[in-house]
């Protein structure tokens, strides 16, 4: 039986919470800060329906660090003032993790995201699904996302997306 690494689990949960907190606070620079500085850092948001049918297309497909930085520009600069804003609340729960090598961990977590548009004030579920993460253990002991795939059980979104999930 594998020994539980409570220190590592706490650190993994802290990373999950930091991402959820950044998104719920619309803090895109904080969101970006959860990702590794490596060029290969990526965030892909895709329906499970696409994945299960070997269709790679996503709702968001940021497959390098530059695109992650551009995602911040979309939200903070390009789209400002053009959409009906909404609050989100991300609920996340780690389900499983595995050490891949000395500096890499894979982790699977469930998520559900509530959405409350500021104009209607009515809360509904925006999406549910799972995060499939690859996490880098950096030299200073920090954990950063090397890749995240937000795989949505919600194949039909109830509205357009502004913020990553």
């Amino acid at each position: 039986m594998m020994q539980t690494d409570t220190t590592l689990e706490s650190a993994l949960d802290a990373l999950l919470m930091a991402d959820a907190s950044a998104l719920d606070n619309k803090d895109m620079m904080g969101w970006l800060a959860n990702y590794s500085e490596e060029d290969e850092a990526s965030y892909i948001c895709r329906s499970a329906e696409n994945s299960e049918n070997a269709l790679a297309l996503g709702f968001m497909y940021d497959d390098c660090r530059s695109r992650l930085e551009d995602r911040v520009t979309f939200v903070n600069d390009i789209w400002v003032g053009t959409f009906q804003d909404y609050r989100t609340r991300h609920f996340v729960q780690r389900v499983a993790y595995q050490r891949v090598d000395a500096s890499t961990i894979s982790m699977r977590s469930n998520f559900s995201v509530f959405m409350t548009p500021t104009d209607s004030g009515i809360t509904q579920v925006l999406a549910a699904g799972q995060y499939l993460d690859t996490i880098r253990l950096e030299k200073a002991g920090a954990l950063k996302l090397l890749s995240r795939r937000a795989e949505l059980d919600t194949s039909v979104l109830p509205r357009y997306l502004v913020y990553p999930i």
Partner: protein
Amino acid sequence: MTEIGLTWPKNFNEVPKAAFTRKDIYAEEMKRIFFGQEWHPVAHESELPNPGDFKTFRLAGVPLLIARDREGVVRVFYNACSHRGNQLETAVMGNKTEFECPYHRWLFDAKGDLVGCPNHRDFLPGFDKSDYPLAQPRFDSFYGLIFVTLSAETETLTEFLGDSQNTLRELLGGDGRLKLLGYQKVRYDSNWKSYTDNDGYHAPLLHQAFKLLNWQGGKGRQFAATKHGHICFESALSVVSGPTVLKDDSLIAFKGQDPAVGSRIVSLFPTFVSTKHLDVINLRFATPIDEETVEVHYAYFAHQNDDEDMVLHRLRQSSNLLGPCGLISMEDASIFHRIHIGNHTPGNAIFQKGVHDQSKLDSEFLQNDESGNLPRWEYYRSVMGFERAEA
């Protein structure tokens, strides 16, 4: 047909907002338009490339099963067992050469023939399986784009498409030999007409991205095709020049062969919008859910001649540029919602840009004219039987 009380404004550039919100009008639209004499795109053959591939889709609530048989022939069926009408296939897509109804185990092949049913000795005398194939709506295709009509009276597909055919062919890669990349599916809190009225036409003033990306355009052609008022846009590609705010500008790069066919939009009455912009090929299969909601399935494609790099480029560009979360289209999605909310106020929506004379319709427009929507509105008015107020 039921007569519905709605007086249409005398000016061709005005549309009563009540047409977007009234339940009785929506119910009549179902009869006159969605079950009427129109063709509705429901799939492209490249979504089911292999023998046995299938896709299900609901067109105005009607469940459809689109299936490719072992010999490669694609057919459209009603997705309901020919026995008691049970929904036959529940998956959105997949691969099967036989479809079994779980209720009484009736089994159909991908040609729609009933090939098995247990206990048929207990059925009516003379029961013959060949009398019970899956029922089919009328369907036809254009460069692989599969259309369905729910009326026996509809004109041919060629007549329906009319002068939109060449633009649509170019949009479909020139030969229709596409390769599916995937879907983005979304429901908008919007009447179906608010969606189609604002999706094909992209008001550049809305898009901050054009300014920040140093992206100039607006020099193309827009024309209306057939009495249905299909809208076609043709413009040479306008590419970003000079510095942009993006760190990875491959998102807005053009790697295709011919800039002359860089940008195409075809919006077919009543709900279909399709676009080829930069290297994105996007077919939007839309269907009304109720008078306040429309569901849109954005399907994205590569071309079968693409090499691996080009497919990856299209995949990255398609995911991030033109859909419900796209760099230059998320604002459009927001407009669908906001215009529908605004339509719950009295009065008329008024078109201005490109309107030269309120008392008549044009058929040729500039790329950024909003008047290109007006022939379609005149067709809608006539199909719905709304009388225009006298001048």
